[in-house]
């Protein structure tokens, strides 16, 4: 890619907005996933007693709904990210691309 295009895109305020927002959002969700998963793993390793204790009168223990929660959480955070990226972030990206392409023609 030609260095002019790189500089033009880098100085586009929308580009800076896109990169800052998307990477911030991506990292927040990544950390939330890590907290949920490693939290669950550590609970399983350290507090077996709690995980194996019954919630109510029946056979159901805390471990089962927590495990299912981790699975559902995984799918839900992915869905939240994909929805936002395919809408808001892609719209920003398209605008940046359009401007970069227009600039190219003028420069050539």
């Amino acid at each position, binding site marked *: *890619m030609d*260095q002019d*295009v*790189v500089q033009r*895109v*880098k100085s586009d305020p929308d*580009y800076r907005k*896109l*990169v800052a927002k*998307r990477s911030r*959002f*991506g*990292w927040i*969700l*990544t950390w939330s*996933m890590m907290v949920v*998963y*490693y939290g*669950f*793993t*550590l609970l*399983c*390793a*350290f507090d*077996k007693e709690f*995980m*194996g*204790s*019954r919630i109510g009168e*029946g*056979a*159901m*223990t*805390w*471990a*089962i709904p927590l*495990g*299912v929660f*981790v*699975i*559902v959480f*995984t*799918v839900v*955070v*992915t*869905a939240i*990210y*994909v929805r936002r*990226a*395919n809408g808001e972030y*892609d719209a920003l*990206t398209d605008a*940046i*691309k359009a401007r*970069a392409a227009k600039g190219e023609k003028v420069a050539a």
Partner: protein
Amino acid sequence: MKTRHLLAPALLAASGIAMAAPDLGQAAKQATNWTAISMFAIFVVFTLFITKWAAAKTRSASDFYTAGGGITGFQNGLAIAGDFMSAASFLGISAAVFLDGFDGLIYAIGFLVGWPVITFLMAERLRNLGRFTFADVAAYRFHQKPIRVFAASGTLVVVAFYLIAQMVGAGQLIKLLFGLEYWIAVVIVGILMMVYVLFGGMTATTWVQIIKAVMLLAGASFMAFSVLAQYNFSPEKLFATATEVHAKGDSIMGPGTFLKDPISAISFGMALMFGTAGLPHILMRFFTVPSAKEARKSVLWATTWIGYFYILIFIIGFGAIVLVGTNPDFKDGAGKLLGGNNMAAVHLAKAVGGDIFLGFISAVAFATILAVVAGLTLSGASAVSHDLYATVFKKGKANSADELKVSKITTIALGVIAVLLGIAFEKQNVAFMVSLAFAIAASANFPVLFMSVLWSKCTTRGATIGGFLGLATAVILTIVSKSVWVDVLGNASAIFPYTSPAIFSMAVGFFGIWFFSVTDKSPRAAIDKAGFEAQEVRSETGIGAAAASAH
């Protein structure tokens, strides 16, 4: 012309099954084998027609590696899910639940949680920077040769371990389910896999994977539904009955001995979470879709299907506890499960759906192995033809036809090697191989990919040395851990005390990349760092990516 080439192996395989079955079938048991074999034969014939159709579309190297980028997000999501729902996870995790209850779910969850991380940090950038293999991305701004050699090594090592585990699994499984000889099963898998990949490339491999994923999801859904139906759709009743009949009683409802100590727990979790983001046959699938949007959709679909599948497996495992574990028909004289604990899900299929459904599930299990090995082989072949031959050996000047020819030769070579290794490892304990593949992917491929894309000061030297250090550490620590040192080599006690090396080997990989980058004062290092800006713009926006795939 193509038709004849395709049909010949099909007939060969079909007649091989037909002739081998009767005499061996008598020695083993039951006529049910016939149902399984005919259902599998239908699957094979159907997938060979797809391969024929795909072959007509596979003209260039790009078609071969990425199906010409013509797979939709939904289709790719199913194919990725298919890569993950291997026979090992279907039979292995349901067996783990059958034996230990909740511990099986802990294991399954580990395989799922890598997906969001891939989506948030990698998918978009991979798509925007790469064309065929993950090395395209890792080597984007670096000196091509060392990084490509590293990436190809990382790919081939991961593929080799994964492949051996699948081949041995196939042989053992088919021996039990179809009553065929071990080596015949391994050869059938090898031949069919070569046919799919050779003629149909990524298009056929993807469709075989999609069909199998649909069959497996449908079969598993039916099993879980039938189990729950017997308890009026009350999980509470199912769990209550399970704790009454299971030898371990209430302890199946909570974590048991699977996570021995916190370090093993975290380390194992890291191998699974980050290993997923470094598996070459998975990363390759991001290049089969036309846009970043479709790439994201495919991970969302994949995550959804895999999550759903693991919940089904958990129910199936508990179903096996109550319906198989209590039924003497499924046990031998000593009270052990016929065919071993891995047969829990298969016996459950018979318990809920009779012989026809048992045949269906057996055929699906075989199809699963076939589809997974095809994907692995394709990924290994691309590493050799695209990274080593076209980029390193021909310095990027190979023409598409020659590159395609090299991929096909490599496919044949890998197929033959896989069959030979599958036979050689028949009596070996290969349980460690899939976890080792994940540990290597997490410690070598993932750090290199991550640092090259996100860290501006990463250099060729740092990425290459760090990557190899991570790879070596993962392999060495696995060899001296219990799974190889004690279980395979027969020593009394393990030198490395933890289940998984990932927490250490990943640290070594990342540290190596950092250290050998910051101390790198070569002229090449300056070029590497200067290239970051352009790489960043392209990885974030995809500008230039479309042009790159057009030529």
